[in-house]
């Protein structure tokens, strides 16, 4: 009977196509928009992921990595004095304007690394050597800078120059970084040169990057640093999560994406629910005939649920497949943001299952209420 139930479903091609299209669209909207949302939130943590150190120390008021409250330079020494700290180095990070040879400007994220150790250096170089950062006026730009400058007609390469705050910056290398939330390119230089590039300010130290000793647990070191007045230490993962939560709570992004995802659910319920109801309604006479011939509600329920879940899983497959194609395309380009963790697939699957259950239940109620005697009318 279940095979025949599927044949009944597939036989009504128009409704089957409508159901699959509705649920595919629903799954596509939910997975694609959620993935773009997650990708966007992931972009907000780019600085933490580009500068790979276990512990970040910032001003106690700092809530997320893209928020800079300058510290006094002595804070580096205070952190170094904490038992369990192996090393601690300063980091400059701020958004400045780069002036291009044709006079146009481009916002950049200037990142000043400790010149002795170059801790926080980019993980992957496309051209040049990281050590060349120690040369006069040297900077290393990322692949985003190459693209952004190219859009303005400037082919940036090793040896090219531009200005930051009226001072020359000479490109000695090109690196790969994770793209940031605002899309501004990362420009790496040494800490001391970053201070020269930045406008005059009483305090300029942005973060202290820390490595705990091998024999001291990370949590212990974090706790000890947090006891220093005016400072707050974050484990890198924790800092990234706090940044994500901050964007979640303090921006309208979740509402905006949430509305689209909700729209997907509404479209799914409306199209799939209504079409499935129509499908049952049009087959009600046949369902009643089956009841008359001895099909119990249990058998009819199995048939209806099988039909509902078949369209559900087909629609889910198409929707997720289309999202995967979209993701594949955008990941090659690097934008728009896209990150599809398994939780999105599970969430969408659960919503689709709920829509299928709801549709099937509404149909079953109609069948249960139908008088078997309608077969004689």
């Amino acid at each position, binding site marked *: 009977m279940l095979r025949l139930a599927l044949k009944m479903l*597939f036989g009504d091609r128009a409704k089957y196509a409508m159901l699959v299209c509705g649920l595919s669209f629903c799954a596509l909207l939910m997975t694609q928009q959620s993935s773009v949302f997650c990708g966007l939130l992931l972009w907000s943590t780019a600085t933490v992921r580009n500068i790979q150190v276990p512990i970040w120390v910032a001003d106690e008021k700092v809530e997320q990595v893209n928020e800079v409250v300058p510290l006094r330079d002595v804070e580096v020494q205070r952190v170094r004095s904490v038992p369990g700290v192996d090393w601690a180095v300063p980091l400059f990070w701020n958004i400045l304007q780069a002036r291009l040879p044709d006079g146009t400007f481009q916002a950049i994220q200037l990142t000043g690394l400790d010149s002795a150790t170059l801790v926080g250096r980019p993980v992957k170089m496309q051209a040049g050597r990281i050590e060349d950062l120690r040369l006069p006026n040297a900077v290393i730009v990322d692949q985003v800078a190459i693209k952004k400058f190219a859009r303005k007609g400037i082919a940036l390469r090793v040896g090219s120059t531009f200005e930051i705050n009226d001072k020359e910056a000479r490109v000695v290398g090109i690196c790969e970084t994770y793209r940031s939330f605002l899309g501004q390119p990362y420009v790496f230089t040494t800490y001391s040169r970053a201070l020269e590039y930045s406008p005059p300010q009483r305090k300029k130290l942005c973060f202290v990057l820390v490595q705990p000793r091998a024999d001291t647990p990370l949590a212990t070191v974090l706790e000890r640093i947090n006891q220093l007045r005016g400072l707050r230490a974050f484990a890198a993962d924790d800092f990234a999560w706090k940044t994500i939560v901050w964007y979640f709570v303090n921006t309208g992004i979740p509402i905006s994406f949430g509305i689209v995802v909700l729209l997907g659910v509404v479209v799914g319920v409306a199209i799939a629910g209504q079409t499935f109801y129509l499908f049952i309604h049009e087959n009600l*006479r046949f369902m009643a005939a089956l009841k008359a*011939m*001895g*099909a119990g509600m249990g058998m009819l329920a199995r048939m209806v649920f099988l039909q509902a879940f078949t369209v559900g899983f087909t629609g889910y497959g198409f929707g997720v497949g289309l999202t995967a194609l979209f993701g594949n395309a955008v990941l090659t380009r690097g934008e728009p943001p896209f990150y599809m963790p398994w939780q999105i697939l599970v969430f969408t699957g659960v919503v689709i299952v709920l829509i299928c259950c709801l549709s099937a239940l509404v149909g079953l109620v109609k069948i249960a209420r139908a008088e078997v005697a309608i077969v004689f009318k």
Partner: protein
Amino acid sequence: MSELNNGALAVQTRSLVKTFGGGENLVQALKGVDFEARCGELLMIVGPSGCGKTTLLSVICGTLQFDSGSVEVFGRDLGAMRPAELTAFRGQNVGFVFQQFNLIPTWTSLENVSVPLLLNGASRARAEAVAGKMLEAVGIGEKLHAYPSQLSGGQQQRVAIARALVHEPRLLICDEPTAALDAGSGRKVLELIKATACRPDRCVIVVTHDSRIFPFADRITEMEDGTVRAVRDGEEIQKMYV
């Protein structure tokens, strides 16, 4: 259940009452109907539209609940059965031929006919084998894999008869089986029902308006305004209707 022979009581109703609606819209469709049908006979229920024929048929086959009175089918009291029992009883003992055939349009003849067997727990292979033989028996063995839309009205009714008989029910219920057919096809359908369905241990009840098929009846129950007006048999039928 007692052994059923030719002439034994198959269906019996006593003081059967069924009403629809309520208040000012109350319609009493059956007003204390006493009705009998016996094994081995083809009994027709006739009467004008709205006289309660289809309501009586629906109650007899257990697809419609009644208000008062009693209904016994092969000695079982339908009023005492729970819905699930009634469904199982119908599945095993009752076959249906509907006016509009009610063949599922997306299933082939073979699949439509195998449904009662599948519902009674037969495997797909056995159900299709028996259904194939039944379709051959009703004369459309070459249309096993045809869909209802590919069949004429007469052929669809043959498939419906095959479906009604395939699980060998003891009660065959036919609701206006010739209403959607031309005269020739209608006659052939009745000939087929008479030839394949009428057996000593089986009762066939046909509700019809079609006086051309009255001569096929062993007995005719005439209904009027929710009551049985008369029951006619053999010679009377020949005198009145032929």
